[in-house]
């Protein structure tokens, strides 16, 4: 029973991983670009939630929405101010741009909020639910379920709506998309907005359940990258399966080996994966 408890807890967190990994995979799929600051977007979502709760009050729906909107705007602004200018530049510039951005965001947060761990004040989401002997803290449960729904929503947005097909058209063939009247620049900015927005949302959801500090972004960024590698670059369903898997593996390694090893096991798994299937578990050969 304890083992089941551990796995379910891991899966709930894994659903949140899936949500923010989807953003990373979207940008990779459209622009062949890895955003090194993606984990920092998650971290900023957490602080955005904290600021909204402290200043405005309100429930989880309000601060989650606020975090999503703020990060959406930030993502689009970063696209126009920075990414657009380096996309066609040398590889070094592409990698350094978001890498430098990650440092700026992470350590500005350090400077403003200090390195201490914080958590959200008690919200409406508290207590524990008992389902068939399984004890589920309500915040974790809510975050996991919401993340699952939102990841599915993002997938539907990409595959079932007009905007989604325009995004995919740009990913498929930029020039051809331009010929049919799609403006790739706008679509790419939208992709950055969606990616950052979903990361911010994921951050706000996690903030309800876990304490955090400015340095969590680095770990989340790596987790997202490994999730995307596992799930195959450019695939939202792949990110979902892989996110759930990473969450479960982390929870089990923390349970069996000790909490320090939860990231170690995932990173080691990643290195093993590089050797065995560099194109990802569900990726194309």
């Amino acid at each position: 029973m304890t083992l089941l408890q551990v796995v379910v807890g891991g899966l709930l967190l894994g659903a949140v991983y899936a949500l923010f990994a989807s953003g990373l995979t979207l940008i990779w799929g459209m622009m062949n670009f890895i955003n090194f600051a993606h984990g920092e977007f998650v971290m900023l979502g957490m602080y955005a939630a904290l600021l909204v709760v402290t200043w405005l009050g309100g429930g989880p729906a309000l601060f989650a929405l606020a975090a999503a909107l703020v990060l959406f705007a930030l993502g689009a602004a970063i696209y126009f101010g920075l990414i657009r200018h380096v996309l066609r530049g040398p590889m070094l510039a592409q990698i350094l741009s978001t890498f430098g951005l990650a440092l700026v965001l992470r350590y500005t947060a350090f400077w403003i909020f200090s390195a201490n761990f914080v958590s959200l004040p008690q919200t409406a989401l508290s207590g524990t639910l008992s389902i068939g002997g399984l004890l589920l803290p309500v915040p974790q449960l809510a975050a996991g379920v919401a993340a699952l729904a939102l990841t599915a929503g993002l997938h539907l947005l990409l595959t079932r709506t007009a905007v989604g097909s325009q995004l995919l058209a740009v990913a498929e063939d930029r020039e051809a998309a331009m010929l049919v009247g799609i403006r790739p620049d706008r679509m790419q900015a939208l992709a950055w907005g969606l990616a950052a927005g979903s990361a911010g949302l994921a951050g706000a959801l996690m903030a309800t359940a876990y304490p955090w500090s400015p340095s969590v972004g680095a770990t989340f960024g790596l987790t997202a990258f490994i999730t995307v590698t596992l799930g195959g670059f450019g695939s939202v369903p792949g990110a979902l399966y892989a996110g759930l898997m990473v969450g479960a593996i982390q929870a089990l390694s923390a349970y069996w080996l000790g909490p320090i090893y939860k990231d170690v096991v995932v990173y080691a798994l990643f290195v093993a994966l590089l050797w065995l299937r560099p194109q990802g578990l569900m990726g194309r050969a």
Partner: protein
Amino acid sequence: MSSDHWRRAGAALAVAALLAYPLAASSPYYLDIGVTVLLAAISASAWNILGGFAGQVSVGHGMFFGVGAYLPLLVYTLWGWPPMAGIPLGMLLAVGLAALIGAPTLRLTGHYFSMATIAVAELIRILVGTWGLVGAAIGLQGPATARGWWDLTFRDETPYYYIFLGVLAGVLALTHALQGRRLGYYMRAVKAGEAAARSLGVASRRTKLAALALSASLTALAGSLYVLKTGFVDPDSGFGILVSVQMVIVAALGGAGTLYGPLVGALILIPAQSWANSWLGGGGSGLTFVLYGGIIVLVARFEPGGLFELRRRMLRWRPERSRAA
């Protein structure tokens, strides 16, 4: 003709200044800055071979630096050997590590390699921090007082300055020699266009692996030098993100892929960082990193070729302007 003349005079002057600096440095503080500049130039030059010339951007080079830093103190702690004896071991281990990471990832796109380097560097940092044999989170300590000259433990920093200067000269000479040889041309070709390079018979993966191995071993050497000077290392000072970041930023600021770019970057960044730290009250507040990140973003956005490229463009721009006038 005259510009060549000037260049030679300038180079002679620069060498003389580097040689005479410890005599002119009025206090240990300034001497320490000099030593730190040289060390940063060595590690950034080592990074530059892979990241600058071969175009494979590692942002986890701290793993090689850390290996180089740990091995000398490990052989001292375990067996009482002089730390120096750990230097070749560290370089060898770094090459092995490079092969382990490079063989699978260098087949993939550049972004992928970069992200993989961070993941592996983090993995190693965390593992070292939990491994009792290598001092876990506390780290390792070198000999407090020298048992003989072979311990290379000096109270004054002047000997370190000249040792580091000699190593820097060696690394630059090696890089220069590489530039003129087939491997150097192949590295630049792979960076400029892998498919085209392969169509001309360049074994791109082997070329990238060679660059990585050379870069990793020299980075480990830089780590060893660092630890000879400080006599102490822990997971963060050896494998931490700052170590990796500093190599990239120093090289990129001066000019990645140029011979002297890393030295120029170190000459600017290290003193600037030192002054910034004394103004902003130490590196603990994180503002140093904000500054680093900001510089990286600005270089990437406006001048990915670094200061050398900026200078080259300005030199080209001037005669055209005068002709038009």
